[in-house]
Every structure is written in C-alpha cells, then in structure tokens.
C-alpha cells in the first residue's frame, strides 16, 4: 500500500516538474519582446560589425590611389598557410637608383584562416582587416584577389 501511494505521489511530482518547465517556456511565449533573433538579410543596411571583426585582408588606398605597402614580404613570411604572395618589380627612381617596389600583392581569401598574423607583422600598417563577411562567389578563382589597385603607388614618406 505504501509503495502504491509513493507511486501516485511520484506521478504528481513528475507532472509538477513538467509544469515548472512549461512556465519558463510560456513566459517567453507571451513576452515576444524578449526575442533576440536578428532578421539577417533584411537588416543588411543597419548591420554594423565590430571594428575588430576579421572578415578579410584589405589594403586601404587614399584618394590619390596611394597605399603604404613597400613590398617587403614580411606578411608573406608570417602567413601560416601561404595565403599571401608578393610579386615585386624593380624600377629606377628619378635619382637614378634601383629600387624594388610592390607589383602585385596577391591574397588568396579561400585559403586564409584570418589569424591576423600578417596585419600584426606589417611594419608600415599597409594591410588591415576588413569587416566584409559575405564572401560567397560563383567561381573559386574570384577569391584570389590583388590587393593593390591598378596604377596605385606607394605613399610618400613611408620608411623602407
């Protein structure tokens, strides 16, 4: 008889624990302003990423199409998986000296793990992390980018 009463009590206790749990879910059901879901593709215009967010490596250019990259190749050395290739060329300056400058700063976004080592190592701060995160493209080749814009040149006063 005693075990039978315990059995009945356990059923009611069990139902009670379910009701306690249901109270939590009911609370959120009737307070929809507690919802935290972002309507992502619709809120694109207002969506602001954090300023340190690492989306891709970019090379900022000024209005005069100047950048800070000297083509030293330190970013290439620091990259753990070969996402960066530096192709440099030698030119002859107006003073008649030979000088190596950057020809193409090739960046393979498809291989990049966004570890920030290249940006940290860059002595002139020529490359930074961009906040763009929508990188889907139709062709894998489009993920290989040339960071320095065509016709761009190094800004004056950058130490070699």
């Amino acid at each position, binding site marked *: 008889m005693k075990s039978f009463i315990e059995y009945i009590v356990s059923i009611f*206790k*069990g*139902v009670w*624990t*379910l009701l*306690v*749990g249901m*109270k*939590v*879910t009911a609370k959120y059901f009737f307070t929809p302003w507690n919802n*935290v879901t972002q309507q992502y593709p619709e809120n694109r215009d207002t969506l602001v990423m*954090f300023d*340190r*967010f*690492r989306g891709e490596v970019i090379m900022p250019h000024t209005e005069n199409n100047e950048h800070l990259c000297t083509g030293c190749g330190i970013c290439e050395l*620091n990259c*753990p998986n070969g996402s960066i290739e530096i192709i440099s060329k030698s030119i002859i300056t107006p003073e008649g000296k030979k000088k190596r400058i950057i020809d193409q700063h090739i960046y393979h976004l498809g291989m990049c*793990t*966004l*570890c*920030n*080592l290249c940006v*940290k190592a860059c002595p002139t701060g020529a490359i930074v*992390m961009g906040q763009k995160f929508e990188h889907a493209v139709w062709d894998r080749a489009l993920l290989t980018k040339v960071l320095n814009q065509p016709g761009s040149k190094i800004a004056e006063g950058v130490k070699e």
Partner: protein
Amino acid sequence: MSEIREVIIKTDKLATDKYQVNMGPQHPSTHGVLRLLVTLEGEKVLNVQPHSGYIHSGIEKMCEAISYPQIIHLTDRMDYLSAHMNNEAVALCVENALQVEVPDRVKYIRTIMDELARLASHQLWWCVFGMDLGALTTFFYGLRDREHILDIFEETCGARMTVSYSTPGGLMFDIHPNFQKRVKDFIKYFRTKLPEYDKLLSGNVILRERTEGIGHLSYKDAIDFGVTGPSGRASGFSCDVRKHNPYSAYPFVKFNEILDHRCDTLARYEVRILEMYESLNIIEQLIDNIPEGDYAVKMKGVLKLPEGEFYQRVETARGEFGVFIVSDGKKNPYRVKFRSPGFSNLFALNNMTKGHKIADLVAIMSTLDLIIPDIDR
C-alpha cells in the same frame, strides 16, 4: 520470415540475435563525424567500438612545418569551443621554454577569457544535451545566452570562435574599452538565466528518469581511462588543473572544485551546471581588478626555443589539455603532441554503456561532451 516464426513458436518468446549497427559517421547526435560500431542484442548495447579519424586533419604534423606563433591558429581548430584555452596552452608552453614572464594584466585577461569560453562551451553543451534527449527548447535558450559571450569575443578578439587571442608573449590586442562593461552586463544577465536552466531541464522528471543511474563510470575507471574534466570530476576524480597546477591568474582567485561521487550521467550534468556558477564567480573576482600595464611582452621576430622538451597543461572545458613540444633549437618544433581530453574521454564510452539501452548511449555520449576535431586532431 518463417524461420523466425518457428523460433518464436519453439521458444515462446521473441527471437533476438546479436547484430552490429554503425552509429555515425553522419549521425546527428554524434556531434560530428564520429563512427561508433555498436554491437546490439535487441535494444541492449553489448559493445561500443569507436572509430575515429574521419576528420583527421594532421594538425600535429602541420605544426612541425610552421613557427611557434603560427601554431596558435591551428589550436583554435581542434577544440573549437575551448579555443582560448588551447591558445593559452601553446602560449604558456613557449613562454615557459623561453623563460618569459608575462605582465599580470595578460594573466588576468587570459583567465577571464578562459572562463568566458568555458561558460560558452557549457552553455552549448547544455542546449545540445537537452536536444539529444528530445527537448528542443533548450537548444534555443542555450544559444541565445551564448550569443552574448560570442559578441564579447567578437568585439575584443575579432572573431567569434577561432579567436587566436593569446600569442606567445601576451595577447593579440588589448581588451576593447567596452569589454569590462559588457562582461559585467553579461554576468548580471546570466545570473537571472541560469536558474531558468534548472527549472526547465534539471528538475524535469523525464531528464531525471533518463539520467539517474545511467552510464556508471567508477572512480577507478575514470583514472584508468584518464577521463578528466567535468566527466572525471563527476566520478569523484579530483583532476582540476586550475586547482592542482595553477597557471595564469588562477592562483589569485578563490573557487571550488566541483566534485560529485554519484558517477552517473546526472552527476556529470550537475557538475557542469555548478561549474557555470563557479565560472561566474571567478570572472566576478577578476573583472574589476584587471591591472594596468602592457598587453604583450616584446618578443623577437623569430622565436627559437632552446633544445629540449617542454610540456604545459591547462584545463579546457572538456578536461586536461596538454601541449608537448620537442625542440631542436630551430624556429619550427621538431615534434608537437597534443594531449586532448576528448580522445581519452571517448574511449571510456564502451565501459560506461555496457548493458544499457541504445537510447541511453546517446545520453551518455552527450554528457562526455565530445568535440570530434579534438579527438582526431
């Protein structure tokens, strides 16, 4: 068909036979690409043979070809829910080898980040555990709270999961000006949400029926298999590296090591819930006292470790994580070995599931909190 019928008529009960079932590699409740070869008799589990290696990525071998600061970003990708602790393990190992003392500020920030990562990991474990037992609601509630921590990470470290924040010699960036305020807001918020976890799931009669007395892992077996972390502590095995071998700012804080001697699935569940409270306590002790100073020591451009062997262990959300570096004095390590908690925990599974039903196998595996890239590396 007729044979089975004959057997039923002869023996007067349902014919059962041993058979083997592959659980995984693509089963949703294996938390990744893990293949379990399960020998069943009816619904009863006789033997579980884990087959790992389906996403083996050769991280240890890759480490031999790259320099020490570059190893950090690979450790993010092993146990991606404890990325901070993994980064810290490598950073501490290299710092110890080079005998570099980092500023107190770095230690404090690393410890706060560790505990935030532990909270985020346990939140995800909690919601997935509920889902494995059939409670989908927990999945949304857990992820909702985890989002706050990931936002903190994103603001300070620049990434949500693969943070690469600790580097040899300090940190990648200083903390964001909003960091302390955000963490304090989060603690205040989460202190109101954590009791809801208990109301929703911990007291639930279905959860208790399905976990109490299931998956017994004795104290002796826990030590024999090297089961560490919350899973080991639920068997009464005092194995908290933070307590026994303190690193970073853990010597400066007071906290309890959560131990439970019931050894079953429910014990492992409750140890993790109580650890979340402890993590909140640790962060509260540190967050207002972050000392001023540099966020990194100036290190050489090329790090070369002295010849020898170096080992460093830390406590991740899953257990003891160890880094063993053999150096021959060059800029790359000669050999790197990672002692990952998931690997040891997984192989205690056979011992724990014997004689239980196949539905219990899912529950037991879920309380081990396996991360498959951590097992395969």
